[in-house]
């Protein structure tokens, strides 16, 4: 459960610090995520879990330390470089963040139109239908996001995150606001993506049941510091009360 440093690290945090309005949210956090690995980040609300994801995809910049994605220092990249790295990544937002003035089809087609100009409209249509089919929304492509339930919006958000076939998938609270059954469906979809596409995943969650199903490793954050990092089995061996509160199945 030491701070892992893997050679084949797809994502690496090196002594990362981040604060807002003088309050430190992340304090010297270091960990790595290997290729094809699923890391679940656990911890109380406000401990910097979502900030960690936003640092990985370059929506935020670290105050100190380095965030490396496939060896690229996210803070040092120019706009073009950042876009290239982001092409390898998908991001499922907590609220799904679907474009509310677009249909689901248009939501998914948006990056395809722009990033692969050689793709014909038919190819884009097929790609959108196939991706929506993977999340069970093949019949809902013409619907607007506000016509979907919370669970469907999450699945649509996941479809949009997957449409560019990312090597890395970042997921923010996949179970939030969902009932247990729907949350399990989302977990199953994530497991399917991981096994079939060998996608590297970083998932921020409060749902320890889901986390145990998906994760190869846990990272537990508390008050901005990395409390523990390791496989679920490794962390289960610890007797730290605070840690056990985060990782024990209730």
């Amino acid at each position, binding site marked *: 459960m030491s701070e892992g440093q893997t050679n084949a690290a797809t994502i690496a945090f090196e002594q990362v610090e981040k604060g807002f309005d003088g309050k430190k949210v992340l304090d010297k956090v270091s960990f790595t995520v290997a290729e094809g690995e699923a890391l679940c980040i656990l911890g109380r609300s406000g401990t910097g879990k979502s900030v960690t994801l*936003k640092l990985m*995809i370059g*929506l935020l910049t670290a105050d100190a330390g380095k965030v490396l994605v496939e060896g690229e220092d996210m803070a040092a990249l120019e*706009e073009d470089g950042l*876009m*290239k790295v*982001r*092409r390898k*990544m*998908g*991001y499922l*937002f907590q*609220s799904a*963040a*679907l*474009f*509310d*003035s677009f249909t689901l089809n248009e939501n998914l087609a*948006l*990056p395809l*139109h*722009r*990033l692969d*100009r050689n793709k014909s409209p038919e190819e884009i249509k097929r790609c959108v239908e196939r991706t929506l089919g993977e999340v069970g929304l093949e019949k809902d492509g013409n619907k607007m996001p506000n016509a979907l339930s919370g669970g469907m919006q999450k699945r649509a958000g996941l479809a*949009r*995150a997957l449409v*560019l076939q990312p090597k890395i998938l970042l997921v923010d609270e996949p179970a939030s606001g969902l009932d247990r059954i729907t949350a399990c469906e989302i977990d199953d979809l994530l497991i399917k993506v991981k096994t079939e596409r060998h996608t590297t995943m970083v998932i921020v969650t409060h749902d320890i049941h889901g986390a145990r199903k998906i994760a190869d490793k846990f990272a537990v954050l508390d008050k901005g510091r990395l409390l523990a990092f390791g496989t679920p089995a490794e962390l289960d061996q610890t007797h730290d009360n605070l840690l056990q509160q985060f990782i024990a199945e209730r």
Partner: protein
Amino acid sequence: MLKSTFDSIGKVALFGAQAIRDAWVPPFEGEYLCKQLYEIGVGSFFLIVASGFALGVVMTLHTRSTLVQFGATAEIPVFQSLAFFNEIGPLVAALLMAGRVGAGIGAQLANMRATEQIDAIETLSVNSFKLLVVTRVIACTLMLPLLTIFMDAAGILGGFLSEHIWSHLSLQLYVHRAFDGVALADFVPPTLKTAVFGYLIAVISCFYGYTTNEGSDGVRKAATNSVVISSLAVILADVILVKCIFFLFPDQAI
């Protein structure tokens, strides 16, 4: 207060300069631009035409009551056309645009920011500034001169109907009198200055919407600021542009 005002002006100016620079850099968002042109142009058409028509009627009524005292009612059409071409058309179209489109842009972008939709665009490797800001700036800049022409036409038509009811003046004679003595310089520069108004409205509204980060309160502030600041900017810019037109076309100032 003064420092923060200048700070805001500086930020808006840089934001607007970035929009101009990015407008020339590919990839171009043609499809989304067409959508914005339609929403801004066609969406504002009825408001502009209806307002222009009503203003035309009211203007003629006011002008008539004054000119009738001097026996100069024959001059009503040309007063009407000059007033609309020079000032009423461009300014009122811009202020209506600031109210309708400016508030819409500010609120929509602020809502997209609050609901992480703008972040979502960025995570998809799409340049959100080019997609959301540049397209709106181009659309407003192109559509406002066009809408101004429709407002001018509606105003002159409203004036004609009002005058026709009073004096049974024929359309042919009204149009002849309205355009007699109107030079190209009376129409082209004031109409083109609305491109600047459109640019200002779009840049200011996009700035307040795109850069907010305060949730639903940010949406309210963005919508309010978009209308208030862009209306003020249009009026101030009008002063400067009218002065510029007088400088470039001295005959206009006489």
